[in-house]
């Protein structure tokens, strides 16, 4: 079988789910004839027609809200944010209406909101955001963020089938940079389970999305240069979070580095640290440390973006510090 990019994997997942279930349909800006700003939905219009691949006005609240209404009526809408930075424009309706629908009104709201996230692409402050942390304290939402093509496909399929609203983050840096052969058949990856991206015994890196790859790079370098055996846990599901997998790796290595691309303060690393503290405090031989972006809006110039975002050498340096602690 041919290798498939992360982007193509998402498209395949959407395609298969739309084939399988006529209640699945897509909405978003420029997703039809144009195939989406990144071409994720390319070809869907031709196959499924304009009723199931709907170009919307520039109205993130409008079409996310419409998705909720359609979902109440038995449809399974998938909304694309042209860039995930515009998810903020649907923040209120997502956190207030969608997230609470089942709880307060027993209204099912099976829907997916997906879109390209993240930096490392010279996109500047409004095309590079990592907004996942803003949704973490909203019960009723699920949040997933795959880092491999295989997970991208398997999790978009799970997201579409989930009976609640799933925010599906895609890292645009990975769209065309990674590829792999995908499992055959109806490949579904469950929401809520982390993935052990690399086994190790001296130190654990807990991470997700693009920094999984940076962490793996760092792990190799640490193995090569320091003889350190570094485990890398790819969370991939942020809400719910896989406490079991987190606890397992902490108990195994007793030293934890959390790496994410979002800014340090208020990022998801805080929650992970709290859970480790609560669930495996006694196993810690060193403080849980964070490698994350500096607390500034993400600037545009390569020199600035590179400084602000966490890089592989940063992870190496932090891991060495932690190993020597």
């Amino acid at each position, binding site marked *: 079988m041919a290798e498939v990019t992360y982007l193509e994997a998402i498209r395949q997942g959407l395609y298969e789910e739309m084939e399988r279930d006529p209640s699945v349909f897509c909405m978003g800006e420029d997703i039809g004839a144009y195939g989406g700003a990144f071409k994720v939905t390319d070809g869907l219009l031709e196959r499924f027609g304009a009723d199931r691949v709907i170009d919307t006005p520039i109205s993130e*609240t409008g*079409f996310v*809200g419409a998705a909720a*209404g359609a979902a109440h009526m038995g449809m399974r809408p998938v909304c694309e944010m042209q860039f995930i930075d515009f998810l903020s424009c649907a923040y209120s309706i997502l956190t207030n209406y969608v997230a609470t629908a089942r709880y307060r009104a027993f209204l099912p709201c099976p829907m997916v909101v997906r879109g390209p996230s993240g930096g490392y692409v010279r996109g500047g402050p409004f095309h590079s955001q990592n907004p996942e942390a803003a949704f973490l304290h909203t019960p009723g939402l699920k949040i997933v963020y795959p880092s491999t093509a295989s997970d991208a496909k398997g999790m978009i399929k799970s997201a579409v089938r989930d009976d609640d609203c799933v925010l599906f983050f895609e890292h645009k840096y990975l769209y065309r940079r990674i590829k792999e052969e995908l499992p055959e058949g109806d490949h579904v990856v469950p929401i809520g389970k982390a993935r052990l991206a690399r086994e190790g015994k001296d130190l654990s890196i807990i991470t997700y999305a693009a920094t999984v790859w940076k962490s793996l790079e760092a792990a190799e370098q640490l193995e090569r240069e320091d003889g350190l055996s570094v485990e890398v846990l790819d969370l991939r599901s942020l809400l719910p979070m896989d406490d079991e997998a987190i606890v397992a790796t*902490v108990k195994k290595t007793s030293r934890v580095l959390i790496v994410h691309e979002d800014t340090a303060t208020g990022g998801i690393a805080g929650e992970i640290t709290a859970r480790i503290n609560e669930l495996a405090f006694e196993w810690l031989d060193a403080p849980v440390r964070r490698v994350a972006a500096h607390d500034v809006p993400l600037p545009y110039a390569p020199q600035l973006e590179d400084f602000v975002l966490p890089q592989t050498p940063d992870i190496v340096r932090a891991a060495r510090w932690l190993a020597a602690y």
Partner: protein
Amino acid sequence: MAVTSALASDPAARPGLSRDQLLDLYYWMRLTRSLEERLVNLYRQTKVVGGLFRSLGQEACAVGSAYALRREDVLSPLIRNLGSMLVKGATPLEVLKQYMAKGDSPTRGRELNIHFGDVVDRNFVGQISHLGDMVPVMAGVTLSFKLRQEPRVGLVYVGDGATSTGAFHEGINFAAVQRCPLVVVVENNRYAYSTPIAKQCAAERLADKAAGYGIPGVRADGNDVVAAYQVTRDAVARARRGEGVTLVELLTYRRKGHAEHDNQSYVVAGEIDRWARENDPLDRYVQRLTGSDGIATAELQAIDTRVLAEIDEATDIAERSAPPEPRDCLTGVYADPPAAPALWYREGVQSAVDRHERPASWGTHDG
């Protein structure tokens, strides 16, 4: 598309309603008013949890518009739409239990007052507090009708104040472009909380917003239940014919405060009295029924009696209902998992605490 204007309150116009239907409208308006009066009593007895929101003077608006829908059509009410919900099948018992936050109320005590719905049978969607949000939601409800080619229609209410929200704008525009079978009823009751319409919008006619969305905008006397019915019926028919969205502005007046605690000090002296005296929707309708429609006063009084009996009975049952079981609060955030665990520090949650206790291998590690 032109904005058509119809202050269609000509009482001589054929309403297209049978005698029974005319009496139906009276029943729903009376039920709305009397049920709210009962709620005021319960509120004063502190049996209502939280605030009480009235629609006094707006009953015609709510009842007349909702009466234009079929059972399979979906309605999205707002806080002044008790009457619409009753027409659509909500019961006084449900409403009373909601206001008293009972365990067997429609939301099991999770949401307040008339924030509840039923999309399985009677087809109305529970609102949330955030104004405007129901417009995109109903755009989506009706989009699904269009996609599945079901001959169903949706109706969503917004207040004059809610027309200022971005959600209203995005939702109605989306529905207009998609030609969803949706009727948007703006209940212009001249105030949003304390804010008069002039501080809300510089347009004199909210129906004029329609032109900007390329849809027809019509206006009617919202205190004339038949006019409210007619204008909505026409918009509903248009939607059902696949001709898309209509904006209906119903002119009315909020005679009570935003909620019971609001003393309306911001209202010009005499304004409320004038509306009560000259433009009460029930008084006007009674006059019409007993006048040109030739209905006997006694027949209306019989309805009043029936309404009170129904409310009495519902009140008795509602008051006897139990409050919710505390632990029910943990269920149903997600389909899966079906319930959240109680937190570790909570009495009777020993197991969770245990899981976190210091391990037997204190100071060493089993990994």
